[in-house]
């Protein structure tokens, strides 16, 4: 059975203002339940690709489609609302709010306007699965780097998204936790039939993915 395509990026061109770097490729896609890894040297544009896919950055040309909806044709407001409800993001810098508790950080989409009360249940579930349940009432600033990374993963998964975009989601974890976190991301994406795209440097983890894309090949395609 062919899984429906969740993420499709077509003929993308993106350049930062006043920068020589230009991201340009013909096609990138990820299907429902598929786990895709993007590898490549630092600065090659992996993070930029994820941000374009999430609608945080708007490409100068090309089309971004998620679950059949064109993100590039949506207004800024609609794009933000779509991201809030359908895209789980794990940022390289975790993007936790320091003065909030761990629980509040995981529930942040709810505080920012997500209309899904199930997130509360999933918050507790994810925290248990990632081993941070005891930290839920603690302040985010009191956590170690590894714990912060797990909170970021929990936040991305708690909204049960259509698409999970993770930028180096295991970079600060020890080998055991690294494997566990990746397994959780892959299991959840398969369970929810969502697409998982992970930018990573960690070649040990690549066998777990359905597909591995070398970013250099993508740019040359």
């Amino acid at each position, binding site marked *: 059975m062919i899984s429906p395509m969740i993420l499709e990026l077509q003929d993308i061109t993106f350049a930062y203002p006043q920068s020589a770097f230009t991201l340009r490729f013909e096609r990138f896609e990820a299907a429902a339940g598929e786990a895709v890894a993007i590898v490549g040297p630092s600065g090659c544009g992996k993070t930029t690709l994820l941000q374009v896919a999430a609608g945080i950055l708007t490409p100068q040309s090309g089309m971004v489609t998620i679950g059949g909806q064109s993100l590039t044709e949506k207004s800024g*407001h609609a794009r933000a*609302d779509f991201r*809030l409800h359908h895209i789980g993001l794990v*940022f390289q810098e975790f*993007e936790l709010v320091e*003065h909030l508790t761990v629980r509040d950080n995981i529930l942040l*989409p709810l505080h*920012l306007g997500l209309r899904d009360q199930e997130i509360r249940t999933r918050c507790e579930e994810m925290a248990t699965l990632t081993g941070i349940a005891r930290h839920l009432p603690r302040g985010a600033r009191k956590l170690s780097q590894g714990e912060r990374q797990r909170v970021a993963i929990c936040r991305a998964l708690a909204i049960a998204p259509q698409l999970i975009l993770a930028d180096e989601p295991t970079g600060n974890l020890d080998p055991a936790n690294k494997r566990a976190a990746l397994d959780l991301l892959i299991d959840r994406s398969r369970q929810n039939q969502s697409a998982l795209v992970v930018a990573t440097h960690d070649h040990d983890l690549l066998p777990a993915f359905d597909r591995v894309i070398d970013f250099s090949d993508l740019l040359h395609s």
Partner: protein
Amino acid sequence: MTGIPYLTWRYLRHRPLKSLLLTFAVALMIFLPLGVQTFVNESTRVLQNRAVTTPLLIGPKGSAIDLTLASLYFLPQQLEPVKYLTYKQIRALRQGTVIPLHTRFTAGDSPLVGTSLSYFEERQLKISDGRLFTRLGDCVLGADVATERDLKVGDHVISSPENVFDLAGVYPLKMRVAGILAPAHSPDDQAVFVDLKTAWIIEGIAHGHEDLAKPEAAEAVLERDGKNIAANASLREFTEVTDDNIASFHFHGNENDYPITSLLVFPTSEKSRALLLGRYETSTATAQIVIPAVSVRQLLDTLFSTKDLVFYGFLALAAASGLMLLIIFSLSLRLRERELSTYRKIGISRGRLAAIKIADLLVIMIAGAILAAAALAVTKSLAETLIPRLL
């Protein structure tokens, strides 16, 4: 609590000192100009209330404001006394209620007011405990005097000498507390009231002493000439009026010449008022008639001539503080940039982001405004009780 209110609450709690300081700054910014305005308005109201309930005032020629302050607010003023005869003359005109006042003395820090029983009726003062003075040497206490000195009916109050070195003056009079007035929120609360005749005892016009005709007073007799007995310095004068010695109290001199400070006049009609005012128009009049409301207006105009200046000064200060607050808030937004950027990346709408940006400012402004409103209410209520004391 969820959403923006929750995020705002968490942010404010995260920086409690900053939040509190900003709240107090906003409260001060609002309170200072409005507080001055409230205090001035309340002072004006309290002062004018007292003045408008006293239609006319008769007293010695000179400053009408001094006369008003001495007679309405019992403030010590250097006033020439008027004669008791004036009281008799005005009363004989039958144009209204005439009440004599004698405000020269004090009992401790409280003004000692010699007057008649009509005073309590005209000022609508009610007794909360005991009764009005019915005997020479009795006194009635204003509510605050009784509370502050913890005095009850049956206790005693002693009149104060005019100064410490008043060796030739009269002895202090020990007065029995006959009653205590209910709070009136006026200068009456701080006064000790006595009968005019009791004030005259303190003045030295009347006194009581041992009966020189009795054998036990023989040592005090200086000379006997028929029915006249002259006493020497050892004669014991009474410093308290009691049921036993009240009969020995007697007055010297002509009653018409006895001193009073002023007369409160409550005319029966507009015509009576006009007649009384006309009586003192002539340049030959030995006393003056004053409309207290006019005197108080003049006094307030003098006192608050700088009010507008102060008000605008505080307004400028408030504007400067407002600008400072805006700068602080814009700096605070820069400090929150990382947090706001996270919200943007996760997918907050532009409207919600704007709401988050101004929510803490709004909460602080509202909290500051509530604090200022509370402070204004306290100022208003304090002004009501403090202003009569400050006078």
